[in-house]
């Protein structure tokens, strides 16, 4: 194996890792704040892709319009879900919300199947990103470069928002002690609704971005769902920095795994997770006993 090949594989790992990070951002924000394991995440991601399809293919808008509008639509759906269903279960053991969102996942998936058909829909690369970029050691499609950049930008943005802004501080206060935060005069249930909406919007955005490079179909979210759960578990549930790190590691692991033993590369992810759980049950950067 020459240098360029190894570089290229590592870079492919980075691309895959970015997709994992992108996918797990919405999940991490929602878990890290509300303690909700959002199984509907994959379905919201799929809804994002279908929303992009509707905006670009059926309504003939530009891809950039889809990038801006679709996350808002999915975020709004998330807000409705939180307000009418998920928020009612916060006081109960956390697994009830896991089961609730699991049900919502089936409902959304089958609903889309009924509306758009079970076959999946075609979605092409947007033309302005359709070319290839030469990086010196390899040539990659521009769209992949775009994914890496937008993921980096989004991850940084979310982290800054949660850690450095006033609203972020309120969110963190709500996570640590929602009753006190409520007593101090913030309407914490509205903040939680907003956070869920934001997480849903991030899932939807991931769907829009992934639409051109994935097969857009009713079950597209299901395929990535468990892998993004692994990323979140390995990173330490709720830690944004942790899931970025874990996403990149898992991405590299899969691409390096393909070089050596192709059939086992997906299984490798789960073996890696088992090892992390043995050595460090809380995950790479997780807080101990967080929403446990």
């Amino acid at each position: 194996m020459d240098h360029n090949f190894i570089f290229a594989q590592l870079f492919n790992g980075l691309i895959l890792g970015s997709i994992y990070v992108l996918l797990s951002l919405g999940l991490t924000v929602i878990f890290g704040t509300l303690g909700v394991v959002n199984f509907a995440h994959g379905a919201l991601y799929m809804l994002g892709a279908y929303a992009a399809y509707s905006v670009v293919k059926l309504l003939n808008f530009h891809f950039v319009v889809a990038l801006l509008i679709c996350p808002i639509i999915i975020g709004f759906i998330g807000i409705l879900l939180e307000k009418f269903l998920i928020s009612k279960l916060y006081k109960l053991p956390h697994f009830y919300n896991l089961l609730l969102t699991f049900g919502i996942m089936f409902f959304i998936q089958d609903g889309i199947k009924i509306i758009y058909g079970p076959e999946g829909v075609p979605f092409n690369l947007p033309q302005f990103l359709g070319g290839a970029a030469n990086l010196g050691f390899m040539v990659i499609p521009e769209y992949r470069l775009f994914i890496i950049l937008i993921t980096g930008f989004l991850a940084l943005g979310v982290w800054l928002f949660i850690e450095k802004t006033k609203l972020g501080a309120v969110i963190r206060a709500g996570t640590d002690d929602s009753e006190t935060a409520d007593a101090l005069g913030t309407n914490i249930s509205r903040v939680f609704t907003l956070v869920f909406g934001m997480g849903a919007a991030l899932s939807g955005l991931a769907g829009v971005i992934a639409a051109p490079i994935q097969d857009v179909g009713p079950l597209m979210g299901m395929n990535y769902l468990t892998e993004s759960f692994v990323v979140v578990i390995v990173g330490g549930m709720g830690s944004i920095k942790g899931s970025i790190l874990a996403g990149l590691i898992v991405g590299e692991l899969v691409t390096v795994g393909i070089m050596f033993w192709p059939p086992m590369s997906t299984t490798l992810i789960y073996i890696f997770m088992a090892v992390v759980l043995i050595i460090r049950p809380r995950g790479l950067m997780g807080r101990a006993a967080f929403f446990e």
Partner: protein
Amino acid sequence: MKIDSKNSFWFILLAALLLGVLPFITPYKALASQMLIFAIFAMGYDIVFGYTGLLSFGHAAYFGLGAYGTGLSLIHLSAPTLVALLIGIVSSVLIAFPIGYLSIRRRGIYFAMTTMAFAQMLYFIAFKWRSLTGGDDGLHGVPRPHLGPINLGSELTLYYFILVFFILSVFLGIRIIHSPFGKTLECLRENEDRARSIGFSPTRFKLMSFVISAFFAGLAGGLYALLQNFVPLYSLNLDTSGDIVLMALIGGMGTLYGPIMGAMALVLLKDLLTTSTNIWPLFLGLLFVISVMTFRKGVFKELKERFLSF
């Protein structure tokens, strides 16, 4: 399920009658067998979910291991039926030990996520290992050897064969739940710290309950392989893990008979709906949402509290 002996006598008589004629009521006989198989699975699952309070979200793994273990030993080893079932159960239990050991280190949703991830791992192994498992085509050609003089080839005979295992499982389940061991599990569910402080090791008891439920799942899986003459890959996937949680939840977790009835009702409902429409997943999702939002104690338990008092 004991206590008032007069009521429970009638209850048991009614249940026995119903189970005796069940294959003649259902649209086809194999459906009745399938109802019993999932009832065994759900009852065993209730020991870990309802009684110990651990939401395992990867129990398909043990069902699938039982099914593949039994199926493979019937095909390749030409094992007698009972030995094959035993091999299925042993495979489930042997894998449940390490997975359970690693998973019970965390509580609540962490436990759920970890068990799910391990189940996915097994799913992917079965998916990729085509030469052994048949991959996504499933494992075909599982035979049903005669059991001594009994020909299990007939669907009706197989139903009564499964019924025997069902009855044994229910007795075993009731024994486990009403033993000091079962009470300790409930104690762990209610207050783990207190259980530890009076000298019970939560780790040991949780692991035991996890493995016991894997035992029942493995038995159910083995019977399923016999019934279908085939092991589908979906016996290992997330949908199956979810189905079993819903069965226990809808029936009323922590009651044993609730999950049994929940499983039978759900299997019947699924069959009726999938033959007439193609919106089963939509309906399943709705059922999940409704049961989590409104009757977390389970339909049957709510009914029992209102109309029966035994």
